[in-house]
């Protein structure tokens, strides 16, 4: 039992090294301002917080990078009513997901 517990803890510790829902950075905000000029790191962080708190109640969180921006533009409106999001909350979550899901090469531009 002790051996199994150690193995499980090692798995958890390994997985804990990364977050599949990335915390926004300055580069993210820089990219986002091209789409939404008034966007800041704080704005994106607010979107991430809303995504974690409101969406995790209905389904396991989907890592933003798992879907393309186009797919998120379809998914978020579909989930808005179910998650009881108002327009402002939906907008913040959309900004975060589109920013976090952008292709890697675009992220560096």
């Amino acid at each position, binding site marked *: 039992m002790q051996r199994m517990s150690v193995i499980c803890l090692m*798995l958890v510790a390994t*997985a804990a090294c990364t977050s599949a829902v990335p915390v926004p950075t300055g580069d993210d905000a820089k990219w986002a301002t091209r789409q939404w000029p008034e966007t800041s790191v704080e704005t994106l962080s607010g979107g991430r917080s809303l995504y974690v708190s409101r969406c995790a*109640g209905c389904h*396991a969180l989907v890592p933003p990078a798992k879907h393309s921006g186009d797919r998120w533009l379809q998914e978020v409106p579909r989930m808005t009513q179910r998650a*009881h999001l108002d327009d402002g909350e939906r907008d913040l979550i959309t900004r975060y997901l589109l920013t976090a899901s952008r292709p890697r090469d675009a992220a560096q531009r």
Partner: protein
Amino acid sequence: MMLRRLLPAAALCLLGVQPALANERHFTQSYETATLAPGVVELEPWATARLGRDGYYTGIDNRLEFEVGLTDRLQTSMYVNWGVEGVRNPLTKGIDTTANHRGVSSEWKLRLSDSVADPVGSALYLEFTLGPEEVEIEGKVLVDKRSGPWNVAVNGIYEFEHNYAESIEEHKLQATAAVGYFLADHLSVGLEAMDFNVVEPQVPGGSATLLHGAIYAGPVLSYGLGNWWVAASVTPQLYGYGKAVVPGRGLDLQDFERVQARVLMGVHL
């Protein structure tokens, strides 16, 4: 021809493309940290079969749980517990069955961190049970992590039972661990293990004493789609410890069963 058309459609339904429900359970003994969204209500029927002790023994425990999401992080539930036990009567050689109502329970679960967004998901769990013969208080610390197709959950559990009909108190220390792998968004397979211990609490000048314990492990399967999910496991006893263990056999079949099998189902209302 018709079969060829139906099979891919059936496979698509089975594997699904929607995200899994938050409160979908992928293990039957280990809790994960997810909580229901505010206002979301779920009905959860449970059935646990406990099979094989010294002599003939069959126990079926049933639970009907009504869960409600209160806030982004807090959920509660009420449930009723009942069951039936069958043992061989040494005099008549027949099977005596006893039905029992084990009382009502109130469960509270507070999610502290998320298993996907945060390095590790964590939650606190508290459960009170009031029955016709006993009262129970159970506390759990839940830890889990989802990463890619992997899902890991570990629970630490303390349970206190006071049987006021017979003036008996029991302290239980338990641990569960489970590892699952998602074959598809809605379908996971895994292994689950439980370590059950009944201890005598520390007395002044002494230390806590382990009275008896047993380790179980076995496969677990879960599937969910849309507004429902189901999880099932079969866990044989691998090892028993305490005075009741039969030398050479390594199992405690006096205090624990040879096999436990559990099925859980959840339906969003």
